[in-house]
C-alpha cells in the first residue's frame, strides 16, 4: 500500500496518498480541482492557471495544484475568495475569444469549458470588442478536425504527440490571443495513435472526423468493454445508442483508463473496429440454404454430431473464456476435437512497443490457458478426418485461402457460426450445411486474457434488434453442459485456479487480474 498522509482542505482533514500532486491526490478522495492543461499521462505543464490553489501560511501563497506535491499537514484553500476569483477570471479569459458554438460542437456534454462555466463562472460576457476569429474546420490529418477558435491552448495535444508518440506533428504557434495549434505545413498528424488527441482535448477544439456530427454525447450509452482488435486488450468505453425505430449501433470507442494495460490511450485501428460491429453483419440462420428457426438448426446439428464418426470444432482466439470453456465442455461430451487454429490472426511486424500487437486475437492467452490446440498440423489432420465441422466464430478466411478451406471441407458437413459473412470464404459459405449468425463482442459479457496474461472482464451493452445467440448459447443449443454464461464461468474457474476466488466474472476488479506466469505462459 502506498503511504498515506494527512492534509487539510478548506480546514477539513483529509487523508490522501503521498507522492502525488494535489490534483491527483485530492481527486482520489473526491475533491475536484479544475484544470485544463494537466493530464495524468502527460504530466504538469502549468499553462492554464485553472488549478491555482491557495496554501495557507505557504510561500508562495498561491500555487498551481498540478505542480505541487501533496505534503503532510499542508493547508489547502479551495474556497477562498481569491481562489474563486482566480478561477472565475481564468474562465472569463478563456471565454473572451471562445466562439460558444456549443450547438454545433461535438464536445458539448463532455466539455470542460461547459462544466467549469456552470461551476466556476456562470456570468455573462462583458466583452464588447469583436472576437478574434480563427480558422474553423481545419483538417489536421489522421481523422482529426481542428477548430482553432474553440482551443484554450492547453497544449495537451502537442504534448501527447511529443511525449507519447514522439512524432510532434503539432505545435502552439504565434503568441497572445493569436496563439493556436497548428501542424507544420505538409506534416499533418500521421501516426497510429493520433485520434487520442481528440479524447485529450478538454474542449471541442479537436474532434474526430469519424464521429463528427453523428450523435450528441448525452444520447450515448456507455458500456465498459475491452478492445478486441488485438491481443493488448485495451480498456475501452463503447459509446452506443439505439435511436427510435433504429438498430442499436456503436458510434465510437473511447479508451478507458487502466494503468496496467493501456494507460489512457488506444490505437486508431482499434477505434475503428466498431464499424465491423455495426455493418455487414450476418442476420439470418440458415439450414440447407433456407432461413430456419434456431431450434431447428440446433436439432439438426445435434443429430448430425451424434451420427458422425469424427467431429471438429473450431473456436476463435478472440472468444471469451466462458465461450471457449462451453465449447470445450461440448467437445468432451460429444467426443469432438477442439482446435483454435488461427495463424492468420497474427500479422507479422505490425505491432509496436506501445499498444499495437502483432496478434490480432483478443484471447490467445486464454486459449492456451484452457489447453486448446491451435497448431496448423493438428487442424489439418483433424479436418481431413472429420465428417462434421462446426465453426464457432473463427474467421478462417484470415488463415487459409478460399481454395484451401474448400479442399479441407469438400466432403464435410459444416455448421458455420459467424458474426460476419465471408468468414469461411464466399464460395464455401454457399455450400455449408447450416449457418448461425452470432453475437459479436460488443453484445455479450465475458472475460478475455491479454498478451500480458491479464484477465479482464468486459460488458456488452449493445442490444441489436436481431436476436442472435452468442457462442455459449450456441454450444448449449448443441448440447453443451454449460447451459449459460454462469455455468461456463464455473468451468473456467476449474481450469484456471487463479480466477476461482471470483464468484462471477463481474466480480473481477476493474484493472484486471494478473495471472501468474506459469498459468499464463504455458
Amino acid at each position, binding site marked *: 500500500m502506498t503511504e498515506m498522509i494527512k492534509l487539510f482542505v478548506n480546514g477539513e482533514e483529509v487523508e490522501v496518498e503521498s507522492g502525488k500532486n494535489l490534483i491527483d491526490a485530492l481527486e482520489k478522495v473526491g475533491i475536484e480541482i479544475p484544470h485544463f492543461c494537466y493530464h495524468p499521462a502527460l504530466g504538469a505543464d502549468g499553462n492554464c492557471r485553472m488549478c491555482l490553489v491557495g496554501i495557507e501560511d505557504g510561500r508562495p501563497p498561491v500555487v498551481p495544484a498540478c505542480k505541487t506535491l501533496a505534503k503532510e499537514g499542508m493547508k489547502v484553500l479551495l474556497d477562498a475568495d481569491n481562489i474563486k476569483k482566480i478561477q472565475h477570471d481564468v474562465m472569463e479569459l478563456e471565454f473572451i475569444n471562445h466562439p460558444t458554438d*456549443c450547438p*454545433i460542437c461535438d464536445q*458539448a456534454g463532455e466539455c470542460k469549458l461547459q462544466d467549469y462555466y456552470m461551476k466556476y463562472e456562470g456570468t455573462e460576457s462583458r466583452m464588447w470588442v469583436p472576437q478574434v476569429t480563427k480558422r474553423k474546420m481545419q483538417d489536421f490529418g489522421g481523422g482529426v478536425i481542428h477548430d482553432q477558435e474553440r482551443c484554450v491552448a492547453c497544449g495537451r495535444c502537442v504534448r501527447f504527440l511529443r511525449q507519447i508518440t514522439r512524432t510532434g506533428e503539432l505545435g502552439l504557434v504565434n503568441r497572445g490571443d493569436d496563439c493556436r495549434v497548428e501542424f507544420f505545413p505538409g506534416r499533418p498528424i500521421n501516426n497510429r495513435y493520433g485520434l487520442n488527441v481528440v479524447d485529450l482535448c478538454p474542449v471541442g477544439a479537436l474532434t474526430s472526423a469519424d464521429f463528427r456530427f453523428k450523435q450528441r454525447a448525452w444520447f450515448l450509452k456507455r458500456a465498459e468493454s475491452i478492445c478486441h482488435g488485438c491481443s493488448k486488450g485495451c480498456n475501452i468505453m463503447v459509446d452506443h445508442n439505439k435511436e427510435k425505430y433504429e438498430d442499436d449501433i456503436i458510434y465510437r470507442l473511447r479508451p478507458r483508463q487502466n494503468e496496467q494495460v493501456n494507460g489512457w490511450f488506444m490505437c486508431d485501428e482499434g477505434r475503428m473496429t466498431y464499424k465491423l460491429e455495426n455493418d455487414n453483419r450476418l442476420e439470418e440462420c440458415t439450414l440447407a440454404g433456407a432461413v430456419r428457426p434456431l431450434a431447428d438448426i440446433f436439432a439438426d446439428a445435434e443429430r448430425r454430431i451424434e451420427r458422425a464418426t469424427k467431429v471438429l470444432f473450431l473456436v476463435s482466439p478472440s472468444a471469451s473464456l466462458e465461450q471457449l470453456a462451453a465449447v470445450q465442455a461440448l467437445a468432451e461430451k460429444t467426443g469432438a476435437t477442439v482446435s483454435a487454429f488461427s495463424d492468420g490472426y497474427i500479422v507479422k511486424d505490425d505491432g509496436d512497443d506501445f499498444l499495437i500487437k502483432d496478434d490480432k486475437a483478443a484471447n490467445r492467452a486464454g486459449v492456451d490457458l484452457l489447453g486448446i490446440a491451435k497448431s496448423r498440423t493438428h487442424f489439418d489432420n483433424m479436418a481431413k478426418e472429420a465428417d462434421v465441422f462446426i465453426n464457432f466464430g473463427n474467421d478462417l478466411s484470415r488463415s487459409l485461402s478460399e481454395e484451401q478451406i474448400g479442399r479441407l471441407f469438400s466432403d464435410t458437413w459444416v455448421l458455420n457460426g459467424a458474426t460476419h459473412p465471408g468468414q469461411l470464404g464466399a464460395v464455401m459459405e454457399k455450400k455449408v450445411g447450416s449457418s448461425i449468425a452470432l453475437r459479436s463482442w460488443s453484445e455479450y459479457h465475458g472475460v478475455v486474457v491479454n498478451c500480458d496474461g491479464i484477465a479482464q472482464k468486459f460488458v456488452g451493452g449493445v442490444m441489436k434488434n436481431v436476436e442472435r445467440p452468442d457462442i455459449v448459447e450456441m454450444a448449449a443449443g448443441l448440447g453443451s453442459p454449460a447451459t449459460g454464461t454462469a455455468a461456463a464461468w464455473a468451468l473456467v474457474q476449474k481450469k484456471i485456479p487463479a480466477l476461482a476466488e471470483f464468484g462471477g466474472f463481474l466480480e473481477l476488479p476493474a484493472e484486471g487480474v494478473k495471472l501468474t506466469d506459469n498459468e499464463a505462459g504455458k
Partner: protein
Amino acid sequence: MAAKVKQLPSRGGTPAEKVYLIEIFKGMAITLKHFLRNLWDNSNLYVRHYPEVQPDIPARWRGRHRLLTHPDGTPKCVACFMCQTNCPADCIMIKAGTRIDGVTEKMPVSFTIDLAECIYCGYCVEACPEDAIRMDTGIYAFTSSNREEMKIGMTEMLSLKGGFPEEEYQKGLEGE
C-alpha cells in the same frame, strides 16, 4: 415567512345548508333557468360552430412546426439536437451532417417530426438556440389516415410560412 392568507367564511354551516335539499333545489333552479332560456331562444349559446366558424388564433398558439430559413433560403437549423433532447414525447428525429454552404459547419440532413406523437408542448421552440424552429404556422387541424403521413420532413417544414407577423409573434414571446 408569514404569507398573508385571505380567510374566506366557510360555507355550509347553517342548519338550512346542512339539510342540503334547499341547496340542491337552488342549484337545480339555476340549471333550469339556463335550460329554459336556451330552449326559448338558442341564439345565446356559447358555442363556436366549428368548421364553418374558424377560431381566432393568437400568435402564441402552438400549431404545427416549421423550420425557419436565413434570408438566403438556407435552413437556420444547425442540428444541435436541443429540440430532440428536450422533447418529452420523443417525436423529433434528426440526422446531422456537415454543412458546405459556409454558414456554419453543421446542418440537419433529415429532420423529422412525428406529429402523431407530438404533444405540442413547445419545448423544442424554447430549447432552440438558433430560433430555427417555431410553432407559429397557425395550423391547428392536422389529420391523416395513416401514421406515416403524420411524419413531416425537413423540406415540408422549411416550406411552411409563419402564420403571424413577426412583431406579433415576438410580442407573444414576451408574454411568456
